[in-house]
């Protein structure tokens, strides 16, 4: 009786282990087989992210100031945050900007920042200490007082770099004393680590420091109010943002292959949800038919 309806009904009760196997295959496929996917549309917040760095590099005064690259993420969000950090390092080095890596929530943030910088340094001839520095990690609970102290005296508040040398003695930090010597703040985040910069650093100098945000997709929706209020000048919306940013700085790498897996995993969810709903309606219809028959 009604075999077609009965088949549809099974669509709403697929065992979750089948779903997991389906997801694994759909995600792994693009890494085994080359699957073409269209180029991404560049979203406005990614374009603003790119334009801000370009504008600072073009401005003779601001390009001499220090860029703080805050890498607040751990191993958990490598696919998104590491791809973003790799692209940012390449862009900063392409534009010959001085930057400092700093982590204050995820302890491994300092190691992931180091890896990204070293990977790009070989290509762009950047030398540690000369062109960039790594301030290392400070515990999350002490960051607010530390930032408040760093408004006046960065080398003293931060203390020493990842190798233990006091910041005052690191060549790239020469002339960098107070918040007014910082030209740009870039926050790569896996959790809520943007407010500390906005609360205790961004607007404490003579003029507000342009701030860029590279969160995971889960944190990104909370960034839009800050873009609208002018507290943020640009944002990379997770892996999607990283993929678009890679297109803008034409350094396509992990972003492109990842985008294909992304597209098909989303398609899988959409198909499954449709199947689930169709199955539900089919069951309702079948029950109605039975009631009519027995009535």
């Amino acid at each position: 009786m009604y075999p077609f309806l009965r088949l549809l009904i099974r669509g709403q009760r697929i065992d979750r282990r089948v779903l997991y196997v389906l997801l694994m295959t759909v995600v792994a496929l693009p890494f085994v087989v080359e699957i073409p996917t269209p180029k991404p549309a560049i979203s406005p917040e990614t374009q603003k992210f790119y334009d801000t760095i370009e504008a600072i590099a073009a401005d003779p005064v601001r390009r001499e100031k220090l860029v703080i690259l805050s890498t607040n993420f751990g191993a958990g969000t490598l696919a998104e945050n590491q791809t973003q950090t790799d692209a940012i390092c390449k862009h900063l080095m392409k534009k010959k900007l001085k930057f400092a890596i700093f982590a204050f929530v995820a302890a491994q943030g300092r190691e992931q920042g180091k890896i990204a910088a070293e990977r790009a340094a070989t290509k762009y001839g950047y030398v540690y200490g000369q062109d960039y520095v790594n301030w290392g990690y400070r515990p999350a609970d002490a960051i607010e007082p530390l930032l408040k102290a760093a408004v006046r005296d960065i080398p003293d508040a931060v203390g020493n770099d990842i190798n233990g040398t006091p910041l005052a003695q690191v060549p790239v930090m020469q002339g960098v004393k107070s918040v007014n010597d910082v030209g740009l703040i870039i926050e790569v985040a896996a959790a809520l680590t943007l407010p500390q910069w906005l609360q205790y650093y961004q607007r404490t100098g003579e003029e507000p420091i342009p701030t860029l945000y590279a969160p995971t997709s889960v944190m990104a929706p909370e960034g839009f109010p800050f873009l609208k209020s002018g507290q943020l000048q640009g944002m990379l919306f997770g892996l999607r943002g990283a993929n678009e940013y890679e297109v803008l700085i034409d350094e396509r790498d992990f972003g492109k292959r990842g985008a294909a897996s992304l597209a098909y995993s989303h398609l899988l969810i959409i198909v499954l949800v449709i199947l689930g709903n169709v199955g539900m309606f089919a069951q309702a219809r079948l029950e109605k038919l039975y009631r009519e028959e027995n009535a």
Partner: protein
Amino acid sequence: MFDFLADANTVKVIKIWVAALCTLGIYSILYKENKVFRFFEHLFIGVATGYTIYITWNDTLKPRWWVPMTEKGEWWWAFAVPAGLLFYMIYSKKNVWMSRLIFGLFFGAAAGRSFQGFAALYFPQVRSAINVPLFNTPESRAADAYWLTPFSSAANNLLFLAIVVSITTYFLFSFEQKGKVIPAVSRFGRYVLMFAFGAIFGSTIMARMGLLIGRVYFLVNDWIKGLLLGQG
């Protein structure tokens, strides 16, 4: 002894094997809770605790306390020992209240900072919520404006206000939400909330898939292709 640990290549191979086994071990919970998962769960908690010990010592206590005290002669850092000991009074039956002194210190400090926190985080938000003029909007004066822009931007701003007001009404608790207007506004607020949560969920799928892609890329590229098939 253990000289292989000095050779970079062997370390790289061992590292990839360990990482692959850990990855598959954790994924085994997707099938069902089993002994293999329990092993990697406990391994994970242990390694994570070990890392926290290392980071706390190496990045905080050594450079900011031990070195200044013993090498730079700043002897007053020694007061940190009795102060830090207050934490451990939680284990004393008689003097557990003393641990409340240091917790009180931290609660008080966090509370004291909340004034600046509130002003610095929410004042710009209030300004952006006010910054929604209902006519002669800046978008209508912008370069790429076309015939609809004045109306669409005014409508957008009105919607912005309606959403902020209705959701805040939903979160009012000091009176019963009766009558005709308030429950309707509150219900609209709840529907917008649900719509917004759906959007947040949709935009987060991207992030989670990104993580899975990272792991699958490692398994396929570094482990299977790199080690098993030797295309290293």
